[in-house]
C-alpha cells in the first residue's frame, strides 16, 4: 500500500516538476516573445532573437528528456520492486529532484546573463530610485516571519526532546540544528539581497521590482516553514522506526518546495501586469 502511494507521489513529482511547471514557464516565455516582439521592444532582447528561440527549445527538450528519464526510473522501480536493494527510494527521489532542478538553474543563469547584457546595452545616463525604504514588513505579514522562526525553534527543541536533551555531535538533533541554521541563514541572505541588493534589470520599475521581491520573500519564508516541518517528520520517522514512510515524506516535501517556489512565482506574477513599455524603442528626437 505504502509502495503504491510512493509510486503515485513520485509520478506526481515527475509530472509537476518536469511537465506541468516547465510547460507553464515555456508558455510564458513564448507569450512574452510573441506579445512583446523584438521590433517594438528592443530593450528586452539584448541578444539576437534566434538565441531566445533556441534557448526556449532547449529548455523544453531538457524537461521532456528528464520527464522521460523519470518515467523510465519509475517503471524500473516498479518492475524490479526496488526496496533499497539498488538505491534507497528517498535517495532516488532526492537525486532525481536535483536533476529536475537543473533546467531551473539553467533559467536562473540565463536570466542573470540577460540582465547583465541589458545593463551593458543600456546607454541611458539617467538612473532612478525610490525614496521609500524597503523593509521586510512591506512584503510579508510579520506573523509569517514569526511562524517561520517558531517552526525552526520547535523543530530544534523537538530534535533534542527525542534525544532526551543530550547534546551529542553524532546525534540527529545537532545535525538537524545545523541544517536548519544553514538553510535559514542562506534564506536570510537571499531575502537581504532581494531587498537591498543591486538592481539587476536596469529598466525595471520600482512597482515591478516590488512584485518580484514580494514573491521571492514569500516563497523563501514558506519554504523555511516547510523545511522545519519536514525535519520534524524526518526525526519522527527515525525515532519511531517508520522507514517505509521516508520516501513519501521526501517526495511530498520536494513537491511542496516546487509549489512554493515555481508555483507561487507563476501564479503571483502575471506577465500582462508587468510594465513592458520601458523596453520600447526610445522616440527619436
Amino acid at each position, binding site marked *: 500500500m505504502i509502495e503504491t502511494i510512493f509510486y503515485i507521489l513520485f509520478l506526481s513529482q515527475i509530472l509537476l516538476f518536469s511537465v506541468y511547471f516547465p510547460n507553464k514557464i515555456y508558455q510564458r516565455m513564448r507569450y512574452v516573445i510573441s506579445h512583446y516582439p523584438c521590433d517594438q521592444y528592443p530593450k528586452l532582447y539584448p541578444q539576437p532573437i534566434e538565441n531566445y528561440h533556441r534557448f526556449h527549445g532547449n529548455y523544453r527538450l531538457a524537461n521532456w528528456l528528464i520527464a522521460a528519464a523519470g518515467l523510465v526510473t519509475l517503471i524500473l522501480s516498479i518492475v524490479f520492486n526496488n526496496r533499497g536493494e539498488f538505491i534507497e527510494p528517498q535517495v532516488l527521489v532526492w537525486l532525481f529532484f536535483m536533476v529536475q532542478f537543473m533546467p531551473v538553474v539553467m533559467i536562473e543563469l540565463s536570466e542573470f546573463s540577460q540582465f547583465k547584457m541589458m545593463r551593458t546595452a543600456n546607454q541611458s*545616463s*539617467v*538612473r532612478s*530610485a525610490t*525614496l521609500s*525604504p524597503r523593509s521586510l514588513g512591506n512584503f510579508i505579514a510579520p506573523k509569517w516571519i514569526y511562524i517561520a522562526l517558531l517552526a525552526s525553534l520547535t523543530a530544534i527543541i523537538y530534535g533534542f526532546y527525542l534525544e532526551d536533551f543530550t547534546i551529542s555531535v553524532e546525534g540527529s538533533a545537532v545535525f538537524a540544528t545545523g541544517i536548519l541554521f544553514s538553510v535559514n541563514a542562506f534564506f536570510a541572505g537571499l531575502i537581504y539581497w532581494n*531587498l537591498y541588493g543591486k538592481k539587476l534589470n536596469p529598466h525595471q520599475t*520600482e512597482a515591478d521590482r516590488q512584485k518580484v521581491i514580494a514573491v521571492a520573500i514569500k516563497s523563501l519564508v514558506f519554504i523555511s516553514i516547510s523545511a522545519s516541518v519536514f525535519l520534524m517528520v524526518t526525526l519522527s520517522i527515525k525515532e519511531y522506526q517508520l522507514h517505509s514512510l521516508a520516501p513519501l515524506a521526501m517526495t511530498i516535501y520536494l513537491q511542496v518546495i516546487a509549489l512554493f517556489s515555481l508555483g507561487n512565482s507563476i501564479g503571483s506574477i502575471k506577465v500582462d501586469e508587468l510594465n513592458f513599455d520601458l523596453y520600447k524603442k526610445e522616440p527619436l528626437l
Partner: protein
Amino acid sequence: MEIFIDIDNPLPQFSQLVEQIKLAVQQKQIQPGDPLPSIRQLANDLGLNNKTVAKAYRLLERDSVIQAKGYRGSYIHPDAEKNCTVNLNELVEEKLTDVIGILRHAGATDSEIRIAFTKVMNSDAKRGN
C-alpha cells in the same frame, strides 16, 4: 516618489541627490517624519558608491533636512521644509566676500589672501574640524 541621477551631469552626484531630496521636501512629495531608504539601498538602486549617498545624507543632516535615528535609519526632519530654503553655499560665499573685501581694503593682495586661506584651512583640518 522617485529621484533621478544623471551620471553625465557635471554637477556631482551627491549634490544631485541633495538637491532632489530638498526639492521633494519643498514640493511636499515627502513629509516630515517620513523614512528615507538606507544608504545601501539607495546606492544599489542608483548604482552609486555607498560613500556618495552617505555624503549626501551627511550634508542633508548638517542642513537639518533629515535626521538620523541610529539603527532605525534616516527620517525627514520636522523643520525640513523651512531648512531647505537655507543655502549654506550662498552663506559661505556671502561671508567670504565680506571678509575678502575687508582684507583687500586693509591692503592684502589676492595672493596673500589665498595663502592665508589655505593655511587656515589646513591647520583647521589638522585639528580635526
